[in-house]
């Protein structure tokens, strides 16, 4: 099978690789945006209704692919946070006492409605966040729906999830999510919380709130009891007010390690429960006995998927010295075929960087990488004139001490190192403050198991990368946070065991 795969890949690459002296370009294949009806202004979703913020303040959200404004969003302050929390508190008794079977049916409904309106969600996700339409269409939205579908089934089976234990929901949960997988992260947070009988105040990232607000519409359409889910838009201060609110019993946060630490400190004096899914600098380890072409695909998928805005991105490639030259040559060739540009184009592989700030951060880290003397390679391609874009690139000859081997870039920037022995690979891989994920590429199954057992990371991919599934617990070791999302283990943070 592996050999066959190799062959087909080879054939495929022959087909798509421009031959010497022959050059062709792809026609644009734009996804229509007609399916999305943008409003000029969006309110806060509190107690089942959309409302303006009490202060009347708003902020704008833009399309990073063009830099153009998409809409105005209500800016929630402390008072708005309080009314959202109060709405969730009010809804808690009835929701937590509702039978698991009925709670589950609401979640099944939400899953179905997301599937029915999937293209609308996908286009909106791409407009607001800049990710390639093929990713929002084929990865983000289906996985979000699947997540609701998966946890819907748990709602009436919690006795099996906690055999022999009496459990109860935690109460009002404050959930804060990032801009890299907006709808998917909302699903990861909401589905287990609701299945276990909690009510929620969810705050999407200020850059990417639109799909969460469309989800609020879906929640209305599903006739979820009012106040069970409240969605408030705003900035860092809004999130801080949610974290500090005394009636919030549990915080779930996905985002940067810095903010995760701030949250942990902020609630140190309280009894609030906390789960954090933070940053990473995950190692993607390529052994000499790997299927090289597949591994190169894995490197590309590991770091360039979603412009590298992935907490578990394979941002450190550890390649065995004996195959380094071959891997790098093939990687360069493969990278030359990446299509960078308009995220709405169905052919696009690498879309827009999520925001101007993020692009600046990436550029400054790339500048540090160059200053430190890493051998730099970037894709030779034209970038759109408007909007925020970054050419996929890598640094070769990096060491474990290099800035780009230690600091999370959260962009399409790869750090490549070499190793000689499996032990050395493990040592380098574990030499990080983070411990979110890792990839292992080898055709030797026993080797994959051995290395997987020695890596200090919460998710290990063997001969694949960036695969997600609602049934598979996801989460990190060390400074990548704690708690798991997905699977049976994803329920643990949302119940009190008595």
């Amino acid at each position, binding site marked *: *099978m*592996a050999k066959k795969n190799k062959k087909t890949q080879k054939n495929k690459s022959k087909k798509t690789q421009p031959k010497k002296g022959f050059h062709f370009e792809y026609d644009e294949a734009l996804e229509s945006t007609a399916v999305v009806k943008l409003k000029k202004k969006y309110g806060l979703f509190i107690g089942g209704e959309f409302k303006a913020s009490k202060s009347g303040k708003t902020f704008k959200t833009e399309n990073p692919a063009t830099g153009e404004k998409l809409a105005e969003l209500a800016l929630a302050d402390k008072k708005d946070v309080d009314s959202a929390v109060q709405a969730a508190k009010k809804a808690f008794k009835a929701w937590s006492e509702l039978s698991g079977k009925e709670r589950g049916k609401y979640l099944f409904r939400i899953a179905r409605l997301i599937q029915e309106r999937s293209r609308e969600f996908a286009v909106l996700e791409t407009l607001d966040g800049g990710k390639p339409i093929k990713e929002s269409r084929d990865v983000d939205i289906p996985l979000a729906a699947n997540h609701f579908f998966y946890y819907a089934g748990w709602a009436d089976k919690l006795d099996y999830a906690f055999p022999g234990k009496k459990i109860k929901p935690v109460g009002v949960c404050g959930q804060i999510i990032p801009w890299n997988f907006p709808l998917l992260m909302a699903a990861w947070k909401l589905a287990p919380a609701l299945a276990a009988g909690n009510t929620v105040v969810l705050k999407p990232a200020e850059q990417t709130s639109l799909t969460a607000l469309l989800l609020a519409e879906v929640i209305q359409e599903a006739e979820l009891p009012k106040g069970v889910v409240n969605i408030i838009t705003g900035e860092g201060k809004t999130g801080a007010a949610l974290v500090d609110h005394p009636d919030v019993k549990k915080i779930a946060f996905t985002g940067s*390690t810095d903010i*995760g*630490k*701030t949250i*942990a*400190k902020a609630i*140190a*004096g309280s009894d609030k429960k906390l789960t*954090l899914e*933070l940053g990473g600098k995950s190692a993607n380890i390529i052994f000499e006995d790997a299927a090289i072409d597949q591994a190169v695909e894995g490197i590309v998928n590991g770091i360039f998927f979603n412009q590298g805005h992935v907490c578990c991105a394979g941002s450190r490639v550890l390649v065995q010295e004996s195959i380094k030259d071959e891997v790098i040559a093939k990687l360069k060739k493969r990278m030359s075929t990446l299509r960078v540009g308009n995220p709405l184009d169905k052919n696009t592989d690498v879309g827009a960087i999520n925001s101007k700030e993020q692009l600046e951060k990436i550029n400054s880290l790339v500048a540090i990488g160059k200053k430190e003397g890493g051998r730099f390679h970037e894709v030779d391609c034209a970038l759109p004139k408007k909007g925020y874009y970054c050419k996929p690139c890598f640094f070769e000859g990096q060491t474990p001490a290099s800035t780009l081997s230690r600091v999370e870039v959260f962009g399409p920037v790869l750090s490549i190192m070499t190793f000689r022995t499996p032990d050395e690979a493990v040592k380098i891989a574990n030499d990080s*403050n983070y411990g979110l994920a890792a990839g292992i590429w080898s055709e030797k*199954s026993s080797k*994959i*198991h051995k290395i*997987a*057992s020695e890596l200090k*990371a*919460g*998710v*290990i*991919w*063997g*001969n*694949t990368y960036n*695969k997600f*599934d609602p*049934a*598979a*617990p*996801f*989460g990190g*070791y*060390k*400074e*990548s*946070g*704690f708690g*798991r999302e997905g*699977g*049976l*283990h994803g329920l643990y943070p949302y119940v009190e*065991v008595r």
Partner: protein
Amino acid sequence: MENQSLKINKTIKLYIGGQFPRTESGRSFVHKIKGTNKPYANVCQSSRKDFRNAVEAAKGAQTAWEKRAAFNRSQILYRVAEMIEGKKEEFIDLFKTTMGMTKTQATNAVELGRDAFVYYAGFCDKFQQVIGSINCVSGPFHNFSSPTAMGVVTLVESDEFDFQNLCASLAAIIASGNTVVAILGQSCPSVLAPLAEVLATSDLPGGVVNLLTGNIEELYAVIGGHREVQSVNFQFGSKEMLRTIKESGASNMKRIVSAKKPALCLERITDHVEIKSVWHPIGV
């Protein structure tokens, strides 16, 4: 006079890395007999440096301890119980003399502590089956989640001495492959001596359990900030100390638990494990 044989008092030292050093600070405090001002022994008042040394020993021992077969860890924990049995009289004597227990109470305390090691001995190779999972993912992967050790855990014992709780805490932490630095409470610090001797003769590798006595007021502030400590089990009552440990513990995202739990339960193990999900390819 000549017929009387003078009793040899045992010097109570620390237990770090399988050795019995004195505190590097050269300080001691008096372990007083419960409810009196009468001294029982001088025990070491550990310094921050002793704590760091203990963490270093725990760190050094961790990987090898975790790599041992769970069945082997299980046998070693059972061996600890055997050694407690052998030292039963010494423990009973200590609890009677220093804690004002009756012989029945002291015997009961020792037996409960001993049995806690037996309980967690049996758990070493079973909790993985209880809390691990096979995950049915869409796609050609064998996906499984299993618990692994966190690393070095610091245990801060309550000041209300409870031998069963102490044994249960230590046993549950090391059952999964963690190593531990325990700061004993001040109500019966002299328990360090017989307990350390038990551990030192139980085939337990040096550094897996490290025992310190001292003043928690002096030590708590360094626990949270130590980057080689992955997790803290805080059983001492002070909310203020807990807050400080949580605040400084955010520096390396320590897993910090403080809720009281029954002595014998699975959650004492799951408090100090990480879940790892592995996607293993399927194909020919």
